[in-house]
């Protein structure tokens, strides 16, 4: 497994932002973490992305336990294994699009402008390469962010609400990019509260107030392959109300999708 979460919790005082979650993600999987605002999705993503540490439990990436690593080693894991896509893009405002992509190369290994231009070309922004972020639209900035995440060929793309600030047209462009990446075998974990974005993933898990409340598969073939490889359903040891119990996945109907379609949100 590329990623293993073993009973991880993130606790702030009496608040459990993530409560006793166990999850495994194989290489090449596209996973969506869904839930409403404040459900702990971003906290979970930060812990997976080595940007935050769990209060309890353990996170393993490629078999390496992150709690055993120091700051420098964590920085190495981030730059070698992970590509980050943020909802707010987080581009360096005084660097052009291509320079923003090259920043990731700079911290990873060697700056290569040609490669950076190719990455921008891949996201359809070759002609905007020398524009500053302030001169780009939200969709364009997000595509620069994706190009920056892709430039070092990471094994895992972590995207936090990647379409949260985009219109439908740009949302489609971004999702198409993710599809392409998935086809190329990149593991993608998308944090979203958008049902349509989540439905593009092979697998979805749902959090509510930091607690795992359900899991569902959108791709049966992927599920079969996962189970064949010894993958287990996500689980939680939390005793909070609504928490998924047992080892069997508990299905859910996405409330956002239900709101959009008018259907009743039912747990399967």
């Amino acid at each position, binding site marked *: 497994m590329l990623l293993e979460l073993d009973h991880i919790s993130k606790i702030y005082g009496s608040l459990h932002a993530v409560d006793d979650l166990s999850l495994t993600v194989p290489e090449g999987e596209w996973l969506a973490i869904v839930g409403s605002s404040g459900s702990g999705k*971003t906290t979970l993503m*930060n812990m997976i*992305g080595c*940007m*935050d*540490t769990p209060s309890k439990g353990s996170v393993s990436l490629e078999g390496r336990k992150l709690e055993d690593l120091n*700051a*420098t080693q964590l*920085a*190495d894991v*981030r*730059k*070698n294994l992970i590509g*980050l896509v*943020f909802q*707010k893009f*987080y581009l*360096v*405002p*005084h*660097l*052009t699009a291509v*320079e923003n992509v*090259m*920043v*990731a*190369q*700079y*911290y*990873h*290994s*060697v*700056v*290569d402008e040609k490669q950076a231009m190719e990455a921008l070309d891949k996201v359809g922004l070759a002609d905007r390469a020398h524009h*500053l972020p302030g001169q780009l639209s939200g969709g364009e900035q997000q595509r620069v962010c994706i190009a*920056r995440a892709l430039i070092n060929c990471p094994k895992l793309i972590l995207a936090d609400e990647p379409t949260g600030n985009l219109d439908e047209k740009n949302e489609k462009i971004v999702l198409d990019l993710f599809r392409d990446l998935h086809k190329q075998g990149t593991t993608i974990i998308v944090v979203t509260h958008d049902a349509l974005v989540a439905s593009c993933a092979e697998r979805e898990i749902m959090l509510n107030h930091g607690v795992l409340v359900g899991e569902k598969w959108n791709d049966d073939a992927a599920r079969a392959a996962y189970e064949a490889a010894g993958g287990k359903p996500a689980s939680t040891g939390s005793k909070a109300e609504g928490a998924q119990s047992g080892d069997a996945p508990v299905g859910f109907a996405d409330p956002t999708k239900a709101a959009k379609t008018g259907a009743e949100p039912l747990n399967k």
Partner: protein
Amino acid sequence: MAGKPMTSNTRMFFTMLWGAVFRRRSRAIMAVVASLVGAATLFCLTAICIAVPQQMNDEMRSYGANLIVTPIETDGHKTGIDSAMVDHTTEMVRAHGSARYATYRYENVRVNAAPYVMAGVDPTQVRDLNHHWSVDGSWPSSGAVLVGRDVADALGADIGSTITIGYRSSDNTASSSSSSSSSDGQSSSSASSSSASSGQSSGDATSQSGSSATNASGHVSSDIMDTKGTDFRVAGIVDTGGNEDSIIYATLNDMQKLTGTKRGADVIEYSSSATGDDLNKTVSSINDMTSMHVKAQQVTKITSSDTRIITMLQTLFWIVSLVVLVLTLVGVSTTISSIVSQRGYEIGLRKALGASSRSIGAEFYVESAFYGLIGGVIGTAAGYGLAHVLTTVVFGRTLSLNWPLAIGSVILSALIAVLASIPPVHRANRIDPAVVLREE
């Protein structure tokens, strides 16, 4: 090939620096202005603190001598201090600090039969030593004398008028002991005043002896009304309020022509930069050399008041400057620190992209140093301009550019900018990138 990655990454480093400085102009300008203000204040105050008291010290020294040297003449024969001994004594004085000097040869002369003291001097030396002398007209030159205000009034002489000065060797025969003994009194007064009084008193003494002198035939010669002599033009009138007002100053050459004799100086006056113990050492070193047959004395009043005033001024300058400097530097640090703090998310982002704390530190510190450097250069130039105006307008002095201070000011500006950026960079570096990004 091995050098290529390094070059690319180095170029990227400078691209990021360029972008941060030139594409974020408002913040960059703010940082530069903060450093500029600091450097300008630093340079201006320090330059004034160093230059003004130093110049005042120099100028105070120009208000006369702080050390006098007189000959010890044991055989009653007045030979003075010869030029070789003047050079030797000067060498000894200069061993303890820079010094200016002037030599004086005193003789008793008569103008309209009345006795006066005439000093043979090198006008340039005397002028350099006594900046406080108020001279109407010109300094002495060949055939022209500078007369004291009292002499001019007594003779009714004006600038351009002619006076006849007579010299009688008999007037000066008994003056050597008088001259040397009167020199002893000079330690508590200004050198030139006491020299003058010495000359005057000797003049009085000799004029009396002169009036009752006997000629070769044994008859008493009553030459009191003898007005013969050499004509000199009055080039100028000196007014010091001291004993100089009773003396006639001529060039040494004119003095030699008038007297028909060539001899050494009766007094050497020094204005030495040495003060306190150093000046004492100078005096001792000369007096210990008994073979030189000269005696050195300090003009204590001027030396001590000189030192006290300058020390007081210097202390005051430094206290005020330090307070202002500390306040300015706190302001600079706060501004730079706040500018870096505003970029906390950038630090978080870079960490999220895999940057090490060290590389982030290097980027931000170099950027801050750059702001400090630019601000330092402009600020130092502005500080020099300001200091120049202040010293000219307020203190009435000149100020030349102090290069070591200028370089120090620029380096200190860069250093302060870097130091000011350490806490915010360190703070943002310690926090998990997710937390920094969440706070944005």
